[in-house]
């Protein structure tokens, strides 16, 4: 068991800075998802941890040992590649045995450990197959077995589910999660899929343009994002611009184009500051426009339904709040509002999150 610490990790490719001054710690046994859009530097980070790429600056510390200058073969990282990188000329069991053979373990122990891990991932019957004779999910499990069998200090996963179909991807999320818990292995998981990160991770590190935006639990990142970019990247949200007119104990009061909004707010939002309010569509209720005065403390705005999209279990509304601001609202399947209806828009201040207006995009 080991913790993984990245200290001020920076990688430059010529003029391009792929990763800038990244500091993150993955606690022993913890799964941290490195989340970001493609090209944000997350894979580069993973490759620096694995030793495939030398950082321009900063250190990689694994289990208290500085491995920054060690070649990959001396880091004891279990890596699962996006395309699995299974050895095509070796069978499943030979693939899995590879790392143990490199450690020059006795033949009998290699056979025992390969047998055990194949049983654990449910591939015992396929041990003699070649990778090309396996389905995507089976290849994925082979890659996991090959990485786990060496008892790595840290498990590195590079978009491991990106090449599976939607249904299998969903299954594998939970599968990887349970496997990781069972082995209690420190894991760094790279993904661009926020749903995947939310399901899998103990903590999420959001990386954008090579810069770490925020680290925190999935709930924290989802409901208390630190910037509007992070808020928009995780799930769907409405970003309503406004100006802080007052701070009242734990609430921030903002004047927006649609009216006065009370919200919870990040620290450092002073009176007069430009801000945006992030409101998730699932936290908004619609009511008749002539509904009696709002419940106490609940934000109350008015708008007109512009679009209504049936999504099966849910209905997706676009509500015009005036000045062209379209608010996304998620309603239950039977929601009575129709296009053109005047509606009241209601949401709790606890569900509204005020953020500093974006300095830079």
């Amino acid at each position, binding site marked *: 068991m080991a913790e993984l610490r990245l200290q001020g990790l920076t990688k430059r490719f010529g003029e391009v800075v792929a990763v800038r001054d990244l500091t993150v710690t993955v606690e022993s046994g913890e799964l941290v998802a490195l989340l970001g859009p493609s090209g944000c530097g997350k894979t580069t980070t993973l490759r620096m941890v*694995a*030793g*495939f790429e030398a950082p321009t600056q900063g250190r990689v510390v694994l289990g208290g040992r500085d491995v920054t200058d060690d*070649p*990959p*073969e001396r*880091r*004891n*990282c*279990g*890596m699962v*590649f996006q*395309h699995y*990188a*299974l*050895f*095509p*000329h*070796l*069978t499943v069991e030979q693939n899995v045995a*590879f*790392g143990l053979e*490199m*450690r020059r373990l006795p033949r009998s122990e290699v056979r025992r450990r390969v047998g055990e891990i194949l049983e654990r991932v449910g591939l015992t019957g396929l041990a003699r197959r*070649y990778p*090309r004779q396996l389905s995507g999910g089976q290849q994925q499990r082979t890659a996991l077995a*090959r990485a786990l069998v*060496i008892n790595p200090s840290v498990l*590195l996963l590079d978009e491991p589910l990106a090449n599976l179909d939607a249904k299998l991807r969903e299954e594998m999320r939970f599968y990887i999660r349970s496997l990781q818990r069972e082995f209690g292995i420190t894991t760094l998981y790279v993904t661009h899929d926020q749903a995947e990160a939310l399901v899998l991770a103990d903590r999420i590190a959001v990386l954008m343009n090579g810069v770490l935006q925020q680290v925190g639990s999935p709930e924290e990142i989802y409901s208390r994002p630190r910037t509007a970019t992070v808020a928009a990247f995780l799930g769907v949200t409405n970003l309503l611009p406004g100006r802080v007119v007052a701070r009242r104990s734990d609430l921030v009061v903002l004047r927006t184009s649609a009216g006065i909004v009370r919200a919870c707010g990040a620290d450092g939002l002073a009176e007069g500051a430009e801000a945006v309010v992030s409101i998730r569509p699932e936290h908004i209720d619609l009511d008749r426009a002539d509904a009696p005065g709002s419940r106490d403390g609940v934000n109350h705005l008015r708008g007109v339904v512009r679009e209504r999209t049936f999504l099966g279990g849910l209905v997706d509304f676009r509500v015009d709040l005036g000045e062209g601001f379209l608010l996304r609202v998620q309603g239950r399947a039977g929601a009575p509002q129709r296009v053109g209806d005047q509606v009241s828009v209601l949401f709790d201040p606890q569900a509204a999150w005020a953020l500093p207006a974006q300095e830079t995009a």
Partner: protein
Amino acid sequence: MSAAQAETVIGRSVSRQLGRHLLVVPALAVVVLCFVIPYLNLLVISAMTPSTRAAYLPVFTLANYTRLIADPFTWRVIWHTLWLGGLTTALSLLLGYPLAYHLARAPRRSRGLLMVLVISPLLVGVLIRTYGWMILLQDTGVINQFLRSLGARGVPLMYNDLGVLIGLTHVFVPFMVLSVAGTIQGVDPELELAARSLGAGAWRAFWRVTWPLSLPGVTAGTLLVFVLAISSYVIPSLLGGFTVLTVPILVVRTVTELFNWPAGSAFAILFFAITLAILWVYLRIMGWASRGVS
């Protein structure tokens, strides 16, 4: 579907297949006309009686073969030819493989330039290229003059096996590089990284992963170079100066100097058969070695 419909569907697929097969006809025609028929002709001549008046007497005999097989000189020359061919192949592989690896892993931009450099020996005609080597290698050549100017003794670099080997390897390295680079390019570089992360050093990762996966290219390259080397004529005659005897040289001499067409043909056919047998065994071995490689 009615029977008539089924028939037209089948008919269509048959004619489509036929159309596909028609594509091989031009190549097949060339092979038959320029290769199979001449070889059959050679086979016929090799079983005819030698004559001093005509190319051969149309009288059937196996004497050409029995005489050839009984003569230890025949076997010495065959062995020497195969030996030179094998050595050339090994040397080409040794020089060509690292080059191919580098080429395959080079950034796309520089790959074109490297490719031109690799095939540059083929851009010069064989005679000019070989005379170039003679200028360098002969006893009074550039290399030996340089050695003597340093006070060292001259080294015989030509009119021996070494000269032939140098000349042959020079031309055949490109064939090796192109064959091998193709397969290495098809080997995902991440496989080597995967091996590294599993604890293999750079060398072991190469030997356990990239090398076995590149064997199909190695097979193709070695086969190509070996066949070209044992059948080459100009380079061994010029750089070997007729002190190096190979099968092609001997066949040409038998036909053009001794005017013994049947004996020369018999020699050619015998060597052809031996080469075929060697290649068959070699392909079996390489096929076994690269089993599992798709």
